């Protein structure tokens, strides 16, 4: 394995992640019979926002301004920890999976603080929901990773994902498959997708992630948008690594398969979003507990 592969993966993610959002939107548009926005719309948005000035609420402090920057920095570090299928991560060490989860926690912590800093009731509501749902998604993620650690006898994400093979995924006990289902739910939750959160809603009362970032503007909002795209990528990579168990010895084939998997995941997400209704808010925890149960079941199955 050459050192070029991880670097290329990070670069691909940096460049291509907003495209994932474009693909999801396009698929949703097609499914509902519309033409949809250009595939590159996310890029246009980010560039346009970067070129604007900013408006800040008089209530806010430095915490509000720090939120988007901390979030982007955290997700960038997380990107260097996550492998894409057979392509290892830039940084890999025993326990990187805990650091990965903690970095996402740092991002969330500051987003929630930034939302509460505005003093808006709506943003408080979004913050409250975000922290509630992620508190349940985190055990699902970590228990799932523990099940994978048990299956592969590895404690670092890169070698762990390198071990995954087609045979392992379709193994009769189905543990890896269960983990994949749990990760899909975590992926949808953490990226504020249906059926947990509707990224397109225009009612503040029903939003979760979008309402948290209502007050950001200009470059800050550009950071937020880019962070969302990258978060989609890093969490998607965890899922794609299982769902696309292509491990050749050629790194460029692995990378290609991984990137193709990411876009396939974007298409699947678009289809899921078009075909599913949003869960009632009080039912979301149950959905997330189901994810925890899937992860836990997988772990119990591999532990016995």
């Amino acid at each position, binding site marked *: 394995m050459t050192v070029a592969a991880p670097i290329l993966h990070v670069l691909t993610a940096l460049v291509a992640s907003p495209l994932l959002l474009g693909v999801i939107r396009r698929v949703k548009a097609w499914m509902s019979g519309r033409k949809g926005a250009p595939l590159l719309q996310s890029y246009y948005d980010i560039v346009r926002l970067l070129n604007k*000035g*900013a*408006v*800040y*609420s*008089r*209530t806010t402090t430095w915490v*509000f*301004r720090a939120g988007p*920057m*901390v979030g*982007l*920095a*955290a997700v960038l*570090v997380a990107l*260097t*920890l996550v492998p894409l299928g057979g392509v290892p991560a830039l*940084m890999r*060490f*025993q*326990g990187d999976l*805990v*650091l990965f*989860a*903690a*970095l996402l*926690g*740092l991002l*969330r*912590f500051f987003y*929630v*603080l930034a939302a*509460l800093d505005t*003093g*808006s*009731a*709506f943003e*408080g509501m979004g*913050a*409250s*929901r975000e*922290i509630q749902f*992620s*508190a*349940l998604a985190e*055990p699902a993620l*970590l*228990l799932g990773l*523990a099940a994978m*650690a*048990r299956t592969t*006898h*590895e404690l670092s994400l890169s070698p762990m994902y390198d071990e995954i093979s087609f045979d392992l995924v379709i193994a009769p006990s189905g543990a890896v498959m269960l983990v994949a289902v749990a990760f899909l739910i975590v992926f949808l939750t953490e990226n504020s997708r249906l059926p947990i959160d509707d990224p397109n809603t225009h009612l503040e009362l029903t939003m979760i992630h979008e309402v948290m970032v209502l*007050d950001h503007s*200009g*470059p800050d909002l550009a*950071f937020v948008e880019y962070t969302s795209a990258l978060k989609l990528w890093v969490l998607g990579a965890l899922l794609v690594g299982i769902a696309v168990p292509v491990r050749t010895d050629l790194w460029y084939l692995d990378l290609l398969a991984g990137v193709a998997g990411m876009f396939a995941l974007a298409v699947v997400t678009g289809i899921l979003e078009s075909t599913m209704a949003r869960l009632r808010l009080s039912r979301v925890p149950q959905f997330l507990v189901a994810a925890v149960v899937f992860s*836990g079941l997988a*772990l119990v199955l591999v*532990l016995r």
Partner: protein
Amino acid sequence: MVLWLVAAVLVLLASGVAAVSLSTRPVVAAAVGAWGAVVGCLLGLPAVVAGLAGHASAVTLPWSMPLGSLSIAIDPLSAVFAAPVLVVGALAAIYGQCATHTGGIRHNPGWPWLGYDALLAAMIVVTIARNGVLFLLGWEVMSLASFFLVMNDHDKDHVRRAAWTYLIAMHLGTAFLFAMFARLGAGAGSLDFAVLGRFAATSPEATLVFLLALVGFGTKAGFVPVHVWAPDADTVAPSHVAAVMSGVMTKMGIYGLLRVFLLLGDAAAWWGWALVVVGAASGVVGVTFALAQQDLKRLLAYSSVENLGIVAMGLGVGVLGVAQGNPAVAALGFAGALLHVLNHSLFKSLLFLGAGAIVHVTATKRIDALGGVLKRMPTTGAAMIVGALAISALPPLNGFVGELLIYLGAFQGVAGTNDLAAAWPMRSLLVLAALALISGLAAATFTKVVGIALLGEPRTKAAAHAHETPRGMRAPMVVLATLCVLLGLGAPLALEAVRQAVLSLTPGAMVADVSARLVEARGQLVWVTVGGGMFLSLLGGLMLLRRWLLKGREVTQSGTWDCGYIAPTERMQYSGASFAEPLLRLFSSLLRPTAQLVLPNGLFPTYAKRHNDANEPFVDHGYRPIFQAFAWVAAHLRWVQRGHIQMYVLYIAATLIVLLVWKLG
């Protein structure tokens, strides 16, 4: 080296007594008490540093002691637990002097300072004692000194109630310790640690000793369900005392447990299980209750229950690792637990000092009455945000490091390649699930603290008139916050500090292996440093980028986007209670909250109210019925008390006769 600590104890006691004797000049008395504490703590530092580096030193003083000799010693384990006493003790003393100074001195300040200095001295004695009697003496002084400090505002009813609860809890705990030492010393005829009885791990004696120690020391550490004293006592104690009690004194329980493990020699595997279960229960219960609290200091006290639970889980993982002969699990569990001991003492005292500063200037502890404090108290607020990040175990701060190691220990238990590692995988499952749940809930708890109390608009006049505290109160917090950052970024060095202590906890046959595993773990922590450095430099880069982007552009200030409302007020802000409610609903069967609800009524509703109370079901459904049963029995035995001297003489005579008949008959 250990004599430095003796000197520290003497200086502490002397300055405390001096403070009392200077009662005619309160300002001087406070200064003597506080700066005496600082000097005493500084005096002890060389011994602790040497101890951390692995230089054990023991002294037997020529002084007679019942049941043994007056022997004291410092070893790496003692040093790990003495270090927070000195660091936090000194910083909290500076803070406390400033806080009492500016807050107006009502009582004679000499007595509280004697209590404070005696508390620090007693904790040092506990860590260096190598004789059961001396240990218990220190332990008792520690409990009594802190009791008097909790009693500080004794003219208030709830303070007295909290203090009495605390005293009763401490003495019940100490009773178990007396029994434990009696059992340990039964064969040896002396309570010197060097000769105390060693039992095989599986023997009933060892089991008994372990259980007594778990209850006795667990009461001090605040494990569930013997945590009930902590929320009350830490809430009413002065903030610098609460910082020491919650941040440092609770750790003495952990120290006692570890010392007993060392005394006993081997540990049975099920002890590890017990610690893991107790730790997981304390962690989850503690953090859930913390999230439910409306009172800032009470919330912090419950969060200590959670963090001590994490420490217990780490110890449990370590003990299981030793029992299985798995050096990696043992090394990671013990190292994680000890690092978390150090880290928690820093950020918890930081948070208590910060909370104290807020209470000091706003005179309210209710989170929902605060808001906008960060703008008015920039330094205090920023330090508290650092503390909140650290306690939520977020990188690159120190709280993350200990939890990472415990996580890794549990993951090792799951993923280990050899059969040994898989012997008890279920407890790893328990640790992992509990830690993951705790970290999510801790994030919720501390976003609530920071987001509601520090950010947004002030919700009351008191919060609006908050102002920054004097430098003497801010400086200790800044130091503690800096230490949190440094120990986080310098994680490999922090691990080095507890290395010797971890090795002293592992049995001789495993030391080489564990040592090798610690070197490996250090390698992994280097990556955490790298990641943290990368994060900070990226953050710096983004700040520059943003500044460059916004240069020359229009940056305006306006109101918060109000979603179309015409007149938003600060009372429309989300409150802490509503922020936490959705998560708490999931745990309602544990919390058993009570709510009063007055629904809006009619076409033009004028009055509506919802009031949630966080209860303590362990008291309501556990202890209160038991104590009420005692009270009932006692009430029915009151006829014995007639108040006539003749009756009492009759009792004595009757007892005598019964004894005589029993002995001679």
